[in-house]
């Protein structure tokens, strides 16, 4: 009973998340003394990754754009054929889309938002996962022999390993998808909240959309993605896609910088999985100071421009 892991590609190369996912799958496989096998779609020459023994590579013209039905049936067929016990998937929007569909088609269970390797609890194999949007953890076991594991981003890390992965090309029959994608818009070259190592986020404390150059300039120096609090997107200062928190996007990044955000419980729940949190707020009583690792009590309009300038110097020295 091997461990299968779906490694997402982008422009015919691995997405960043793939390295963590492969490391995690290899670690479960070695716990179980079995093999970890990668599944790669539309990445013709997949390089060795994360200690995987084998990579199954699937290429097909019609798989160039992600469509959920096709991808789900393909992954479910591969899961069935491999006889694997686990299928590990990422926490990307696409993988979350198809997780339930693959589970239904392959008759397996699905445990999402997993943050650690399995452990034994009451004689059962339990996976620690976040619940209540990071306000708690559950130890969850599968009642089915086969289980899909959704790994939370940035929870396990990348573990280098120099095993050479044997690549095998596979072909699958594909059905038409009933849902067709007519257009796709992405901000090319910009870091996304889902992938970025650093996220710079601002709230109502910035007073208005005309001040967002501060956020964008800071993000640019850091190669960070930009985000905002809920009222900022409700007011139309920033697009909904930047709203983070319990009812917006979750953030699990290495460094989260919050500017003029009070730190309401709904906001904190959504960003708490980030490793290091910095807050800049002129109110020393703002609840965010209780959740942050580093804080500056000060006016964003004086602190942020200085921070940008000093970071430019730092970056130049450490380039």
């Amino acid at each position: 009973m091997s461990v299968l892991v779906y490694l997402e590609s982008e422009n015919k190369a691995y997405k960043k998340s793939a390295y963590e996912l492969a490391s995690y799958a290899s670690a479960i496989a070695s716990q179980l003394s079995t093999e970890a096998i990668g599944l790669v779609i539309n990445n013709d020459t997949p390089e060795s990754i994360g200690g995987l023994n084998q990579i199954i590579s699937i290429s097909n013209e019609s798989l160039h754009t992600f469509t959920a039905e096709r991808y789900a049936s393909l992954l479910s067929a591969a899961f069935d054929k491999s006889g694997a016990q686990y299928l590990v998937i990422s926490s990307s929007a696409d993988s979350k889309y198809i997780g339930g569909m693959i589970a239904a088609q392959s008759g397996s269970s699905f445990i999402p938002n997993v943050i650690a390797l399995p452990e034994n609890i009451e004689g059962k194999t339990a996976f620690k996962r976040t619940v209540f949007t990071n306000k708690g953890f559950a130890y969850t076991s599968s009642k089915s022999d086969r289980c899909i594991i959704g790994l939370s981003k940035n929870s396990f890390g990348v573990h280098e390993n120099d095993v050479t992965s044997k690549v095998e090309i596979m072909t699958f029959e594909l059905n038409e998808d009933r849902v067709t994608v007519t257009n796709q818009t992405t901000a090319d070259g910009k870091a996304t909240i889902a992938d970025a190592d650093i996220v710079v986020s601002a709230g109502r404390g910035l007073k208005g959309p005309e001040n967002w150059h501060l956020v964008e300039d800071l993000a640019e120096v850091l190669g960070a993605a930009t985000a905002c609090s809920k009222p900022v997107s409700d007011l139309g200062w920033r697009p909904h896609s930047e709203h983070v928190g319990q009812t917006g996007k979750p953030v699990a990044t290495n460094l989260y910088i919050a500017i003029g955000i009070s730190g309401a419980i709904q906001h904190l729940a959504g960003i708490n999985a980030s490793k290091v949190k910095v807050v800049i707020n002129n109110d020393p009583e703002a609840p965010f100071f209780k959740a942050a690792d580093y804080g500056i009590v000060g006016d964003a309009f004086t602190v942020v421009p200085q921070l940008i300038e000093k970071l430019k110097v730092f970056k130049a020295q450490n380039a």
Partner: protein
Amino acid sequence: MKILVCISAVPDTTSKINFTADQKSLDTSGIQFVINPNDEFGLTRAVWFKEQQGAEVHIATVGEASVEPIMRKALAIGADKAFRIDTHPSDGFLVAQALSEQIKKETYDLVICGRESIDYNGNMVPGLIASHCGYSFINTCTGLTIDGDKAAATREIDGGSETLETSLPLVIGAQKGLVEESDLKIPNMRGIMSARTKPLEVVTPSNPKALTEDLSFEKPASKGEVTLIEEGNIDQLIELLHKEAKVL
């Protein structure tokens, strides 16, 4: 057009989450339950389809009698009829199976679920229902129009968005953006009065099964103190992020 909105009852977003002494379940004392926010966006869009295109709107909730107040609220917002599927919603698989059984009985053109419920964050119910019922499925849906049996939708993807087309019957995973925040309806007196007499049917599911089991719960460890840095000492912040936190 016949629409079903699947609604889950979740702790109000301001709730502090605690678990029972045996760590086996959520401690519900002092917790106010509300309509799952993602479901509320979906419900609001469904009521829009009712008002603009004459749709009939049903809601369904899997749960014990304690969920009925939030179902009455959904009726007050504008749904026509409610089904409470009478069993404990122990995991997403059980819930999806119970809902699918009801959906096959009634048959719908459109089934709206939240993209996830904010309690157990399962992310799976809409995809499971679509697969069980053989409907098309669009997740993280931020826009939906319907013309005859054709649907046009937008979906949020990582770092952007996508427009999609499909035909009914369809399941969507709703989220913020599907309707504007300002369009969310607070039930008015007339709505609340009429909700009292709208049909709320209790259905016994055949035998849905959970495929996962939560063995125990725990709260996050409490955080250490924040390190405060003087406003005029930004170099120190950069130094700490570089050397101590190692994130720069």
